[in-house]
């Protein structure tokens, strides 16, 4: 996903003269076409994340469409206060990370970031996006800049603000569905981002399954929250709701429940709030935490059963 996002970003950089890219000493080689195209608008600022965010704030204040990029823990946890002020000031900086949760499995906990989504979602005006493809990511970015350009300041809910985009290591097949079993009345499963690598593996689970690229249900300028789309169906029964998220607990469950309204049971499949004391590969840690696709399937099967009646 990262490589494809860089390609999209390079195209956007060439088309939009307001885009300024700020790099925290990563992605420099991959974005070399941007350096060649207009070196004034792409800056490798080095390893100074707190100052980096405030620099982005200044650039955004001057009217630029700012994209800032670094590894997840450093562009979220390390500069949290700066992000808070960025959001309060309503600066539409797009923060793009790689290495969320334990994507950098071999590098240990200093490079893990399972808390990024939950802590950033506690900042008002901060939009948190979990795209499953690079194409989604770039569309989110462009939409955020469009809102900033059109912002009249009158509507707090659709006003300007920073956006956090969490890139995964791999991306889903763009042809993968985001909704499975829409006619099931047995319950609802919401999957945050690319928690499940191959969503088609869940097609036999006897529940509505939705892949959500954001955890803000009211945030529908690009992604319509599925709950709203099927609201009339849900009113006639009380579904059991499960969220699946490969990170520390977020407000995803709460937000989903608020949209659904009358629910009949809650489940969460996700990371516990613990440090991961293993290295290895992401797949190995998925299995260790019970968050590989097969384990998720089995847990959902226990809750909802399978469509063929098992």
């Amino acid at each position, binding site marked *: 996903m990262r490589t494809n996002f860089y390609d999209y970003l390079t195209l956007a950089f060439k088309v939009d003269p307001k885009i300024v890219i700020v790099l925290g*000493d*990563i992605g*420099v*080689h991959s974005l*070399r076409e941007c*350096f060649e195209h207009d070196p004034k608008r792409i800056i*490798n600022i*080095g*390893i*100074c994340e*707190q*100052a980096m965010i405030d620099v982005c704030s200044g650039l955004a204040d001057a009217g630029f469409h700012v994209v800032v990029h670094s590894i997840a*823990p*450093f562009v979220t946890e*390390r500069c949290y206060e700066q992000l808070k002020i960025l959001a309060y000031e309503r600066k539409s900086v797009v923060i793009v990370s790689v290495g969320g949760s334990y994507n*950098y499995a*071999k*590098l*240990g*906990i*200093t*490079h893990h970031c399972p808390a990024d989504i939950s802590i950033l979602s506690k900042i008002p005006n901060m939009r948190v996006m979990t795209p499953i493809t690079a194409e989604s990511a770039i569309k989110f970015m462009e939409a955020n800049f469009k809102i900033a350009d059109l912002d009249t300041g009158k509507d707090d809910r659709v006003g300007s603000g920073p956006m956090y985009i969490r890139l995964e290591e791999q991306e889903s097949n763009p042809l993968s569905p985001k909704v499975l079993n829409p006619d099931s009345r047995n319950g609802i499963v919401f999957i945050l981002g690319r928690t499940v690598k191959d969503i088609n593996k869940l097609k036999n689970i006897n529940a509505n399954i939705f892949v959500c690229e954001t955890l803000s249900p009211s945030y529908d300028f690009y992604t319509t929250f599925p709950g709203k789309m099927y609201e009339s169906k849900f009113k006639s029964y009380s579904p059991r709701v499960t969220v699946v998220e490969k990170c520390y607990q977020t407000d995803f469950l709460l937000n989903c429940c608020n949209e659904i309204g009358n629910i009949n049971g809650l489940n969460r499949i996700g990371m516990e709030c613990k440090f991961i*004391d*293993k*290295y*290895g*590969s992401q797949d*190995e*840690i998925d299995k*260790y935490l019970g968050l590989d696709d097969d384990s998720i399937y089995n847990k959902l099967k226990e809750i909802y059963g399978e469509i063929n009646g098992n």
Partner: protein
Amino acid sequence: MTRQELTKHIIKCAYQNKAGHIPSALSILDIVMTMYNDILTKDDKFILSKGHGCLALYAVLWDKGYITEEQFYSFTQFDSILGGHPSSRKIPQVPLSTGSLGHGLPFAVGLAMAKKIKGEAGAVYCLIGDGEANEGSIWEAAAIAGHHSLNNLICIVDNNHSGDRALEIDYPNYNLRDKFRAFGFDIDSYCYNTNNLFYFSNTFSLYNTKPICRIAQTIKGYGCKLMESNPAWHHRQPKTEQELNELLESVY
């Protein structure tokens, strides 16, 4: 083992486990060897703040008998004690889990202060990277160290002049010596790789009145001709046996 032998083991280990920042480890290997062979006493502490150079530390710990060969070659495997950055919870010789840059020096300042409070002997050595010196926390720590005249603190800078970038950051007047001096450090003479082994005298002395900064002019990837100052190798490991053998043959 000699530096060349340890260099080869570092490259082989990274190849075998498809992990590791090899050039960053090689630029500090001499320093870490000298620390463990000649400098550190039982009263001293050593913090590798630029944690991504940990393969150098692991190689030296193996050479000194603190870990086994099997443990060394288990680098970044699922149940290994040796990760891509060192963990204080898995390796007794590691005082702080580093990897996120800019934390080692403030921690070292705390250790140095603790020694002062308790009246303990010994020094605290902290090895940082020059890229790491971008971090504001380094200078916050330096300011504290200077203000409190922590003359039992020695900051060593691995000044290898590069990072994970094809285009070098070109900060004008990026002069670490002047900066550390301005923050109240005494600057040791520049130290160069000589005779294939990093050399500096143990100039730590009770007669120092200030913290010390030693700026080591190093070469990223030092000792492996194909890697030296080549940014493409920053976080890359050899992919094939042929590539591995070419790297090993270029070790000098």
